């Protein structure tokens, strides 16, 4: 009987503590800098050189890129349908061209929008 009351009082104690939930769309929760969200790649100067390491470490074949005649990468595509956000590509990229951004709200209506294509040329 005593244990019952102790339990009840322990629960009652929480009535006077601030709630810990966040109202999601208005208040975003804390995100660390190392969060692995939507991947981003720098195609262009000081960026991807097309060495193919990312392709070899990706578990789900989510990475594709195209090269022009000179062997320069012109477009780089992440297929988010396949991506499991493991961060292997960013970690093993020898040139630091790939970054995992903090963006995580990636839901879309169409599958083709989940193909992230980064194109070089415009930046350089």
């Amino acid at each position: 009987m005593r244990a019952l009351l102790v339990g009840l009082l322990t629960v009652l104690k929480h009535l006077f503590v601030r709630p810990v939930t966040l109202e999601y769309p208005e208040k975003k929760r804390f995100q660390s800098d190392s969060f692995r969200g939507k991947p981003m790649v720098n195609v262009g100067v000081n960026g991807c050189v097309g060495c193919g390491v990312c392709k070899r470490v990706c578990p789900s074949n989510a990475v594709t890129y195209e090269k022009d005649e000179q062997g320069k990468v012109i477009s780089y595509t992440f297929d988010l349908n396949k991506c499991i956000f493991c961060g292997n590509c960013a970690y093993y990229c020898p040139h630091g061209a790939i970054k995992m951004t903090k963006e995580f709200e990636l839901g879309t209506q169409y599958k083709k929008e989940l193909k992230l294509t980064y194109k070089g040329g415009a930046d350089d």
Partner: protein
Amino acid sequence: MNIEDIKNIVSECDIEDNKICVKSRIYDVIKCLKNEYSFKILKSITAIDLGDEIELLYKLFSVEDEEEALLSIKVKAEAESVVDLFDSARADENEIYDMFGIQFIGNEDLKRLYMPENWEGFPLRKDYIQDDTRLAWNDDCNNA
């Protein structure tokens, strides 16, 4: 544990690395190990497709002596079931049946576990056709 005792049961028995390879009568060997050497836990049964035959690895464990015994047998399509000795073998054998298609004689509850009941083929076999279109996650599916 003494290898001689096992040799008494099955004559054809040799030791490779740390595993005891037997050619037949695995049930009797395991029974002996369980009853006389207190190997009371069957940690797992692993099946490996070696191409022409399938190797079954029985990992037995004795809590009292903290000792492990690794038994190996090579089978074609049928094997002796050890369900009478270990309940846990029911789960293992079922999984092996599902993935390798080995019939365990003595285990009557064999059914498709992970795969659908009408599935053809046994996925972990090396001769299993990998590019099965029924489950393919290719770009055509993506765009559809």
